[in-house]
């Protein structure tokens, strides 16, 4: 078992533990290309079955101003987002707008929550299957990397795993605390 394999196994176990309720089916793998071991990401995750009634997750209660407002680009979870904010499109920072499908794979950012000063790992899952929402375009690139480093790249259309790859808007889900800050911090 290579170092990478061991690492992905540990990661999978830890993610499953830390995310609790989620039915976690993280698929991580490696492929050999040109003799170099390179991780094949993104992370595929299971989807929660429930479709809640309208539930605007709403602003972070402990934060004032745009850093606590999920309809603003300055919202703290948006530090590596690239797209239309689902909170402006009938969804929220954690759920897709009515009639759209959350893709099971995403890119990952690490953002500092000004409320507790901690760094959180964020999944920027895209909502898919309907044309561009067009509202609240936001592009911030802390920790963004080129597409040859895909799970860190916000440029990729992350609707790949959904039933239609048409992009509608982006969410910003908390995975858990991050071990380290962004390279940028």
């Amino acid at each position, binding site marked *: 078992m290579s170092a990478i394999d061991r690492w992905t196994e540990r*990661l999978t176990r830890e993610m499953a533990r830390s995310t*609790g309720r989620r039915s976690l089916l993280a698929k991580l793998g490696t492929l050999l290309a040109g003799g170099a071991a390179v991780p094949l990401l993104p992370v595929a995750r299971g989807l929660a079955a429930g*479709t809640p009634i309208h539930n605007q997750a709403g602003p972070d209660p402990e934060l004032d101003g745009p850093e606590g407002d999920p309809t603003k680009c300055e919202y703290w979870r948006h530090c590596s987002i690239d797209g239309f904010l689902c909170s402006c499109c009938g969804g929220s920072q*954690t759920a897709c707008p009515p009639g759209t499908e959350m893709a099971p794979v995403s890119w990952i950012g690490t953002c500092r929550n000004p409320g507790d000063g901690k760094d959180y790992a964020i999944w920027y899952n895209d909502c898919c299957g309907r044309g561009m929402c067009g509202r609240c375009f936001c592009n911030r690139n802390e920790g963004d990397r080129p597409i040859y480093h895909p799970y860190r790249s916000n440029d990729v259309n992350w609707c790949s795993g959904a039933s239609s790859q048409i992009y509608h808007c982006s969410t910003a889900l908390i995975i858990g605390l991050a071990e380290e800050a962004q390279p940028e911090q």
Partner: protein
Amino acid sequence: MLRLAIGLCLALATAAGAEEVEPDDVGRSLRLPQRTEHWVWLNEPLLKHAKLLDGDSGEVLGIVDALGSLTGRHPLPCRERDETYVLETFYSRGNRGQRRDFVTIYDSRSLEVIGEIEVPPRTADVGHGLALGAVLDGCRFLVINNQEPANSVTVVDLESRSVVEEITTAGCALVYPVGERRFGMLCGDGTALLVEIDGAGHRRRLTSSEPFFDVVEDPLTEKGVRNGEQWMFASFEGYLHIVDFSGERPRLADRWSLFTDAQREQSWRIGGLQHLAYHAPTKRLYSVVHQGGKGTHKDAGNEIWVYDAERRQRVQVIGPPPLLAAFLRRMSGIEPDSWTAWLMEAVIPNQGVHSVVVTPDEQPLLFVRHRENGSAGVFDARDGTFVRYLEEIGLGGGLMVVP
């Protein structure tokens, strides 16, 4: 390889602390909240969709696609079935190839696509986007205006989700529902047509009115508003025609002037896209007007005149908000209360509005919209107080539908 592993580790980690924000569920999509009377659908021809907004909060609640026409056909909501219909045209190669037309069926609560009905690939495509399809009362039948080669309508049974038949209506176009199995049309010879279908949706009878308007000298605009079994149409020259479809044969029930002689001399004129709105409980008629010559019947209006339709008297004048300045401010990323925003509002001319719609309830909202940049605003329809802008609706579109 070590460096690579470190890079990967940055993103993900265990969470042992007690105080941190809880992790989120993955894969959730929202449903709509409980419907209120203050919702409105706004089309967007460039993004080819329609947005559902709450006039009370200004928030976007959801979006449905509307592909394959000039304006993006607006949604056709049906309360009895909790369904919303959109007429769409698809080509096998985007803008080329084989054309197929569909009624796409959405669940009105989840906005999920729950079905489709293929219809003859002749659905009319018209820039104004109005009265090209309609759900008849009771939501059993949907009627689509076809355009090519001759005028006809397609009758769709929404219960069996199938096409019943195509009825030739040569010389007559547009669909104005007046009952469960009855709808009106306007015709090129200055008449109105009443189309009646039977319980299965088949053609029962087509009955024409007497000619009652002049299609060249003073035609009726297509932008009528409904009042029960009557439809009100303004003519280019500003005469309101009340067409009654309740009897065996459609007829002009009434006709009165929206302008006094003095106002006509000052060149006051109707115009716009959805330039009329009618609120039945208060009998208030809202009319977008401007001063201009012949040929300006689609121009935006810089005033909205409010009539008591019973007394046939103008009771109020509402001045539209500076929608273009608000639109450009938002596009430029300028804060609403800034000095620059004030300057933009002062410098950029108020271009008026093309469209008005009013909600049907007792505390009605009046929505207004400019079709060239799609910007919109909300008034209290009772007293004409400006309530808010609807921000970042899109980049074009002038249609509004109260579901």
